[in-house]
């Protein structure tokens, strides 16, 4: 009996201590959040409470101008469609180059598959750095050297994609079965052949699924880079925005175009990814 009550008091004391500790952590977190908000508010050009009532002014301006000239909207869609396609192409080419680079890098940094094991550590650091550099940094430096246009943006996004996909792909590779690789090695296949016929078929669906997810992210990145001078829809958006009132209807058309593109790409890619990870496997089962 005494045992149980002893355990009970002991347990209660521990629970209290844990709750107390959690409470302190929570208070600390809230304090940090509030202090952070105050600091950000102080250092901002306009304050939060002053700006809040105006938050909807600009969307209202844009919307009213767009509605007043709604007849022009289809024309604007046609006008800006090439830029939108350029933005998509930047993302598409960057994703492809990034996926190809990431594929090679991932095979080089996976233990058991790497042709030069001593290279694994340094290459992983390189991937870390590629992932850590924001695209805008590379893009701005390249714009200075190569001039404006889509190519700096493509290179910048592709480099970041190599870092991101290289890491994800190597995690996929680690789960691949080594038996086909050993089988191929036993018949004298070269490293390239072992990877191409032994590993890639196992991991391809996961690769494509990750690459599609990256494509969604890259479209957003490519629109942002356009805004700092790398061509595409972002560039047009900045021009119409800096024009100000009078071109807000065109800005609205670009907003809509970008929004629709992002939503459509998200939907299509999530459908395709779902099929790659679930639908395809059941289909294969039926076939075999």
């Amino acid at each position, binding site marked *: 009996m005494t045992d149980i009550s002893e355990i009970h008091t002991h347990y209660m004391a521990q629970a209290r201590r844990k709750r107390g500790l959690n409470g302190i952590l929570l208070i600390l977190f809230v304090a940090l959040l509030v202090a952070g908000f105050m600091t950000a508010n102080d250092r*901002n050009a*306009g304050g*939060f409470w002053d700006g809040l009532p105006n938050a909807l002014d600009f969307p209202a301006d844009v919307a009213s101008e767009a509605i007043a000239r709604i007849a022009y909207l289809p024309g604007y869609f046609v006008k800006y469609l090439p830029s939108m396609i350029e933005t998509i*192409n930047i993302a598409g080419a960057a994703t492809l180059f990034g996926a190809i680079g990431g594929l090679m890098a991932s095979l080089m940094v996976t233990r058991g598959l790497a042709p030069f094991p001593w290279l694994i550590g340094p290459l992983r650091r390189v991937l870390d750095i590629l992932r850590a550099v924001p695209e805008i*940094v590379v893009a701005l430096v390249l714009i200075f050297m*190569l001039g404006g246009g889509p190519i700096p943006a493509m290179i910048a996004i592709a480099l970041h994609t190599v870092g991101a996909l290289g890491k994800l792909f190597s995690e996929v590779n680690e789960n691949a079965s080594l038996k086909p690789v050993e089988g191929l090695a036993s018949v004298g296949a070269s490293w390239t052949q072992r990877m191409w016929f032994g590993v890639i078929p196992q991991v391809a669906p996961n690769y494509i699924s990750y690459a599609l997810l990256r494509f969604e992210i890259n479209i957003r990145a490519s629109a942002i880079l356009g805004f*700092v001078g790398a061509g595409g829809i972002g560039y047009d958006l900045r021009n119409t925005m800096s024009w100000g009132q009078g071109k807000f209807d065109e800005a609205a058309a670009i907003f809509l175009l970008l*929004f629709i593109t*992002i939503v459509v790409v998200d939907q299509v890619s999530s459908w395709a990814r779902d099929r790659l990870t679930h639908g395809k496997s059941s289909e294969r089962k039926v076939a075999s």
Partner: protein
Amino acid sequence: MTASTTDIHTSVLPLFQRKRVTAIAWPLVIILYLCYTLFSFDILGLGERVNLKNAQTLVSDAYSYKTHVTLDNRNGATSVSIEGERKGTYPDGTAPEWVTLGADQTADTLVDLGDGYLVTLGETVRFEIPDYGTFTATPGRTGVNATFPAGDLPNWISASKNRVAITTDAGRLSVTRNRAEVFKYAYGWELFFFTLDSPYHGMGIATLASHAFSGEAGAIANDFWTNKMWRHGDVAWALVETVLMAFLGTFGAAIIALPLGFLAARNFTPLGSLRFAARRVFDFLRGVDGLIWTIILSRAFGPGPLTGSLAILLTDTGSFGKMFSEALENVDEKQIEGISSTGAKPLQRYRFGVIPQITPVLLSQVLYYFESNTRSATIIGAITGGGIGLLLTQAIATQKDWEEVSYYIVLIILLVMSMDSLSGWLRNKLIKGDEGGH
């Protein structure tokens, strides 16, 4: 037996054929697409647009600096400055040891560029170049009046009536009617710790330490912090602002998205229309994209870290809401039933039945986003004007402070990587710590 083998054979052959075709078709399609995009990006025109000189300045500037020694021909004054900037000008009468200033305004200034390259700045400008000869010029109203050693001009000299530029390995000399200027290149980031007006400039670590111990630590720190060339204080603040944007945006979004996530989860909100509305709100927030949110918000709140935080907050509320509602739909009902069997009220059911189950999932997602948002905050800062992103775009816009650009890039990489390890460490700590029981 043989019949069935041929059956299999005939059925397998087309399958193989199809596989072979797709194996070739996919790479072909990809290559065609890449060709199309590269041509539509005008890759061939890139050769004309490439500015190799820019690339050269950028790279050499990133690891070296130049010192200007300038003689103004109109008033005869000589000045020495780092990168030709006023902030880096040597005080009157002082100069680095390779410059011998004239005793007074009329006396010549000697600049020793090393390896026998010797420049004399005065009414007559002389440049002794080993293996070539001596160049002299007497700039005046009639032009530079240059005389060269006999023979054709080498390609590292460009000369006209009013301007001569000589580029050698040891340094550069440029003479115009109004001024003669010598540029000497050296490795490193000059004035990184202290500017020339600080008494601590040029001191070794040991001397500095002894000064610090004798009660000057505050002054030393202040001189470093307020360094006018490198602005360490401002840079530190910019980094803090960037992290602040990511922190406020990510955790603010998580706090807002949690209750909304319950609204969008099938097992917590039986009302279909409410669920539908919540999900469309998430889709809208995500679909509008950070770029558009940034533009809209910077109109209302002006540039600064708050605008960036709010832009991250809005976008991530959409992402978190979607992820949270999915996590909530996968919650194990048994634990909730167990809690309700003890007579728990709805709030207690959530607190003890649901929250402990989803906390590890949510926390790891939120922390992962925190790390990736540090990077986004740099980008948003460059657009809306705040944090290290703003400093970076400003430094790039000057097109000459590339040493600062590389400094900022290094800082950004270090910042993102340390946020990466911090969030990984926190993830391990919090999630492992939670398994101990609730």
